[in-house]
């Protein structure tokens, strides 16, 4: 029993929140092991295929909850492998939000200004392109033109995509076959591995217990490589410091399951979940009106009919990202692509009784190439709560891959619903003008609301009653456990979250290094960007020094 494996730092999850600390700690000299529940795929394994069992279902996770379903990555690289790579920074007012707790939700130490150097560190590490109009897909161009036609602005969205390698196949959710997407597999993770970090796929962490010397023991199960419903053994690793980054739909579940052995968890563990206020609308375009009203032509006789073409979101409307507007009335409207399989069932066919199935829906599907999907990110009310954990992982797995039933319950408040209604009305206003399109929202009745941006289920803050972590991301009452993924973000951001999750993870590293040093680990803070660039490190140095001191 005394041959338990030991490491300095154990990282749970290999998405943004896991890969970033793993890199810095390994580069600083710590022994780092990363446990990831999903498989590890090479570029050549990313398939353009909707068949169950292809990369699309191997690396993807769809957890159905009560009132909210969550989509996310399930592989080495986490969400960065399946995501759409839009990487905007969050607007200034977001950090001043009060939300459901009626006082500032973010820690006093964090504002857009104080986070800026950490955003810069991420921008130096993950190659982000400021897309030009020549990069913008037909769908993005159409959205821009419709926004302009209704007197609005529209922005090409900064994206972690190498546009020179991108073929606009819109298969981003199955992993990028062309190495155009700048996932964590091309920056932080290989750099972490080069510094000795070990990444172990198909290792699903179940719980954490304490060791007599104040460290932690992390218990995992080995997941079958093809049928994720099955496990093939289990093990444990002891570590001095644990970095928990399993994503906002999984991190609180691991902590809840650990509560019996670890002792009471902060109240906010598994509460205050936000879906980043996400909601989708489908516009079915009238091709003639697109030509006549907006003057758009593809050059091959078609005006649009290009739903299938592109690289996820390329253009967003940010007119309502205005700090002088009241909370819950600020949102962005972003053009998006969602593939069949998950992306069409929830679309509602217009009519006296909008419906997701039947003859009317079938007719709507026949016009699929003329669809334009608009993605709203409103300010929600952090209304998600996790029930008691399932037997394993964060869901009872139903299908061999991808589909499971979790314990998240989300009952949107009147405030959230009003914000959605307002954004729905604006989408309609923009796209139904002059007969351009028919717009309907996705139904929330089937699998509840739907998010690819889970946040806030184990959040940072200054108030111990409404935040699980202090402003250095350490779990209250459990020193040496840090949470650095989307669950640490206090609330909805009104823009895509990966850039902010990453900046917070960068910012959390100095305190993790300090905690490791206190526990006798010889580790230094101060690694450059994964490619060796140092400008970001220099700019963040004064802030890092303060965080190292605590």
């Amino acid at each position, binding site marked *: 029993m005394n041959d338990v494996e030991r490491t300095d730092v154990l990282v749970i999850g290999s998405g943004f929140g896991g890969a970033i600390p793993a890199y810095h700690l390994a580069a600083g000299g710590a022994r780092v092991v990363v446990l990831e529940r999903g498989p590890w795929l090479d570029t050549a394994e990313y398939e353009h295929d909707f068949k169950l069992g292809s990369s699309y279902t191997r690396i993807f996770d769809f957890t159905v909850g009560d009132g909210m379903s969550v989509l996310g990555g399930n592989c080495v690289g986490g969400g960065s492998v399946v995501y759409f790579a839009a990487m905007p920074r969050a607007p200034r007012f977001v950090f001043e939000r009060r939300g459901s707790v009626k006082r500032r939700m973010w820690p006093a130490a964090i504002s857009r200004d104080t986070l800026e150097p950490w955003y810069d560190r991420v921008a130096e590490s993950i190659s982000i392109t400021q897309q030009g109009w020549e990069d913008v897909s037909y769908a993005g161009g159409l959205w821009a033109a419709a926004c302009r036609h209704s007197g609005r602005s529209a922005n090409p969205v900064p994206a972690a995509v190498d546009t020179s390698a991108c073929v*606009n196949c819109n298969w981003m959710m199955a992993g990028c076959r062309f190495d155009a997407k700048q996932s964590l597999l091309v920056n932080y993770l290989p750099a972490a591995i080069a510094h000795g970090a070990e990444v172990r796929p198909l290792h699903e962490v179940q719980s954490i217990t304490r060791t007599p010397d104040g460290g932690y023991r992390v218990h995992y199960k080995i997941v079958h490589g093809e049928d994720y419903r099955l496990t093939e053994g289990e093990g444990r690793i002891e570590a001095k410091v644990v970095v928990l980054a399993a994503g906002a739909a999984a991190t609180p579940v691991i902590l809840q399951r650990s509560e019996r052995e670890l002792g009471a968890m902060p109240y906010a563990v598994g509460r205050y979940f936000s879906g980043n206020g996400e909601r989708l609308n489908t516009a079915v375009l009238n091709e003639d009106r697109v030509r006549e009203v907006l003057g758009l032509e593809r050059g091959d006789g078609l005006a649009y009919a290009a739903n299938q073409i592109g690289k996820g979101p390329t253009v967003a409307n940010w007119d309502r990202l205005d700090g002088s507007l009241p909370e819950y009335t600020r949102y962005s409207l972003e053009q998006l692509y969602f593939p069949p399989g998950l992306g069409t069932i929830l679309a509602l066919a217009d009519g006296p009784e909008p419906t997701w199935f039947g003859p009317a829906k079938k007719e709507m599907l026949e016009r699929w190439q003329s669809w334009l999907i608009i993605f709203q990110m409103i300010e929600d009310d952090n209304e998600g709560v996790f029930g008691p954990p399932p037997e394993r992982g964060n869901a009872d797995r139903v299908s061999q891959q991808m589909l499971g039933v979790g314990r998240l319950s989300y009952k949107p408040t009147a405030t959230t619903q009003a914000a959605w209604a307002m954004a729905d009305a604006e989408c309609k206003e923009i796209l139904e003008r002059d007969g351009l399109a028919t717009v309907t929202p996705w139904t929330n009745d089937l699998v509840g609301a739907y998010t690819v941006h889970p946040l806030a289920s184990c959040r940072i803050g200054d108030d111990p009653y409404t935040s699980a972590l202090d402003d250095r991301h350490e779990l209250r009452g459990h020193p040496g456990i840090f949470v650095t993924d989307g669950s640490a973000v206090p609330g909805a951001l009104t823009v895509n979250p990966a850039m902010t999750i990453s900046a917070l993870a960068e910012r959390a590293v100095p305190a993790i290094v300090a905690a490791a040093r206190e526990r006798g680990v010889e580790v230094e803070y101060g690694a450059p960007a994964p490619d060796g660039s140092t400008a970001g490190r220099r700019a963040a140095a004064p802030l890092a020094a303060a965080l190292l001191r605590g």
Partner: protein
Amino acid sequence: MASSPEETKVETLEALADTIVPGPRRGPRDRAVAGVSRTGGAVAAGALDLLRWDATGVSGSLDDYARSLNEHAGGYAAEHGIAVDEDTPAFVALPYDDRAALVRQLTAPGHPEKALWVLLVLFCYMAYDSAAHLHTADAIRAGHPGLTAMGITRPDDDGLWRFPSWSYGRPLADPHPDTTASGSPR
């Protein structure tokens, strides 16, 4: 003529799939397909093949699903005074609009079995919109009714999609005046 338990199950599940994405009758004796649409629907798309595949997680429960659906349909028929032929599975015996009304009930928020029915109809639907039981390129080549109706283009010879033209290629709106140097909102 009374059908075997296996036939009853297949007809019932086909009738369900046909309710989700309807198609044309396959012949004069086809009772499962209601025939409210002229082009191939979920049944022609291979819904039964997908449901029977154990990767879905529903394949082991199809007997129970069919039995339960017919019980619900029997209750629905009684409640609405619809006379159903004893020899026909109750769900199959319902006209299309009543099948659809029952599906709406079973998948509505608050129905105690909602999660189970949503799962089943999800796969019925996916057989049509993404042919999740087939390699996508093969399905398109074979004229899969859903992928074809949606107009999904053929991939290149290596099975990968590439679009050489993707952009109108010109400015189509003014960016927000407060955009920062990094291209983000202020």
